[in-house]
């Protein structure tokens, strides 16, 4: 949920709220790339009787640009359809659901997958079943088995999964959005508190995930699997979006609204936390409705990030070098808007061209790491963020440290990061279900019966 409820309008529309995007060379199938787009944040496992589901009225898309234009060269579209088997009951399921075709599941959802490229739309899958949510031990026993049944093979060596997963993004939401607090360094805050470990604000929450694994050649500009990291053709840019019909008509006494007109984008996401903490609130809705190719209109917020100005204020005396640095943040512009060109990080580049665009840039010629480091590229692991993003990458720590100045020396060797910069962390880790070693890589969702709600405090 790096981008959850991040804008005023989308915060009111969870079914279309794009929360995270992941893109990585599949560690167990290195001739493929896995693309994941998550929606529907903050799912309480106990959220019945109408459990969370994809919107039948939402067009979900994963876009890939491979020719340096910041425009989609390949798009995968996902459309969902729900039905009610038994109109006479209020129940989501009328007995244990032991298969994704089980008639006891009263509200099954299916979907289609369409691939759009070179002006042509090709339907590559239809009638694919979403697994039920993890209701509880009686309703959805052996949930892992149900989820496995919902991994569908598509033509061309592709696989797809769409359904509920454990939230894989971890962050101390409660502290960070409480005036930029970081619990491990509480004593240094302008409003000091005792230092404590970070609290993962996404613990025990689920999300809905669309995961697609395709041959690398499906995504590249020349239809081949590149092996030269320095080749521009090795880099793809990935983002996801959600769109709704232009007009919604609500009629008296009718119940369901009628949707009319072409699809209009209401949410998009590439790099984690972009719209969350970079774009000002007054323009977040606008950002969600625009395309990455239009991001020159928002580039100023990257080159002069508000958060970089706040850190020295909120942590007085901790970031003097950052406070004194007034040059445009070319390091952040590269990481988030153009990719890192060759020659900056030895043996690595993920440059997509000079058009500023928020894209998750993946160099598909970089093989999976034998010993992955969740801090990715800044820690010497080029298979990790910001070279794409793996499900376990600690993007909060990476981006906090980058904003605080850790990456400035890449472009300005005269700058010395403050001593605290490399120690910044929110103190959280994944406390939900463990990630999987195989597709779809995000862990199994928390069950409604099994999960205990948190402990409130005022």
């Amino acid at each position, binding site marked *: 949920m790096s981008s959850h409820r991040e804008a005023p309008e989308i915060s009111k529309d969870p079914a279309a709220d794009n929360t995270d995007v992941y893109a990585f060379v599949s560690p167990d199938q290195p001739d493929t790339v896995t693309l994941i787009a998550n929606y529907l944040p903050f799912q309480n496992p106990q959220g019945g009787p109408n459990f969370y589901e994809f919107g039948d009225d939402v067009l979900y898309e994963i876009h890939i640009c491979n020719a340096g234009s910041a425009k989609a060269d390949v798009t995968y579209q996902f459309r969902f359809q729900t039905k009610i088997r038994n109109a006479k009951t209020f129940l989501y399921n009328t007995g244990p659901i032991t298969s994704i075709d089980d008639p006891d599941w009263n509200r099954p959802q299916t979907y289609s997958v369409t691939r759009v490229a070179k002006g042509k739309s090709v339907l590559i899958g239809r009638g694919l079943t979403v697994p039920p949510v993890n209701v509880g031990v009686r309703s959805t026993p052996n949930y892992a088995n149900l989820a496995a049944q919902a991994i569908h093979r598509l033509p061309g060596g592709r696989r797809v999964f769409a359904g509920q997963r454990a939230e894989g993004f971890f962050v101390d939401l409660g502290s960070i959005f409480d005036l930029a607090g970081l619990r491990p360094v509480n004593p240094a805050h302008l409003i000091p508190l005792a230092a404590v470990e970070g609290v993962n604000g996404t613990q025990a929450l689920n999300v809905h995930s669309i995961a697609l694994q395709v041959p690398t050649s499906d995504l590249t500009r020349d239809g081949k699997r590149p092996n030269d990291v320095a080749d521009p053709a090795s880099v793809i840019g990935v983002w996801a979006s959600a769109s709704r019909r232009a007009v919604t008509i609500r009629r008296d006494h009718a119940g369901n609204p009628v949707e009319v*007109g072409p*699809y209009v984008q209401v949410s998009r996401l590439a790099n984690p936390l972009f719209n969350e903490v970079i774009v000002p609130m007054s*323009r977040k809705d606008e950002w969600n409705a*625009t395309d990455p190719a239009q991001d020159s209109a928002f580039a100023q917020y990257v080159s002069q990030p508000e958060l970089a100005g706040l850190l020295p204020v909120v942590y007085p005396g901790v970031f003097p070098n950052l406070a004194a640095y007034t040059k445009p943040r070319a390091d952040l512009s590269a990481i988030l808007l153009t990719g890192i*060109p060759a020659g900056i990080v030895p043996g690595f580049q993920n440059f997509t061209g000079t058009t500023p665009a928020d894209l998750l840039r993946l160099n598909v010629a970089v093989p999976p790491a034998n010993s992955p480091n969740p801090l990715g590229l800044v820690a010497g692991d080029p298979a990790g963020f910001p070279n794409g993003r793996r499900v376990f990458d600690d993007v909060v720590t990476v981006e906090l440290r980058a904003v605080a100045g850790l990456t400035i020396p890449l*472009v300005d060797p005269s700058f010395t990061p403050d001593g605290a910069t490399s120690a910044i962390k929110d103190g959280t880790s994944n406390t939900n279900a463990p990630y999987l070693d195989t597709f779809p890589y995000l862990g199994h969702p928390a069950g409604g019966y099994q999960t205990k709600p948190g402990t409130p405090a005022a």
Partner: protein
Amino acid sequence: MIDPTRRGFLAVSGVGAAAVAAAALAPSAEAIESAASAPSSDLGSTDGPLVAYVDDVASGRITLVAGDSRAVVTDRALATSLARKVGRS
């Protein structure tokens, strides 16, 4: 050809300077609208509702939405007549 030196890198990725100037040029609603709603004489399927909304009574600009399609027409007389139906003069 990308200059791999740090100066070249700044020139390549230093979109900040250019972006400060460009920041004021956010896509206008008009630009987005005109890009998204190329006039079309075919609003597709005859099933489902046809929605017409008056963007601007004075200019007579009316947007029509049906099926998957959207079209924009200009008809001052129609726009004015519609406005009067809902009490707008």
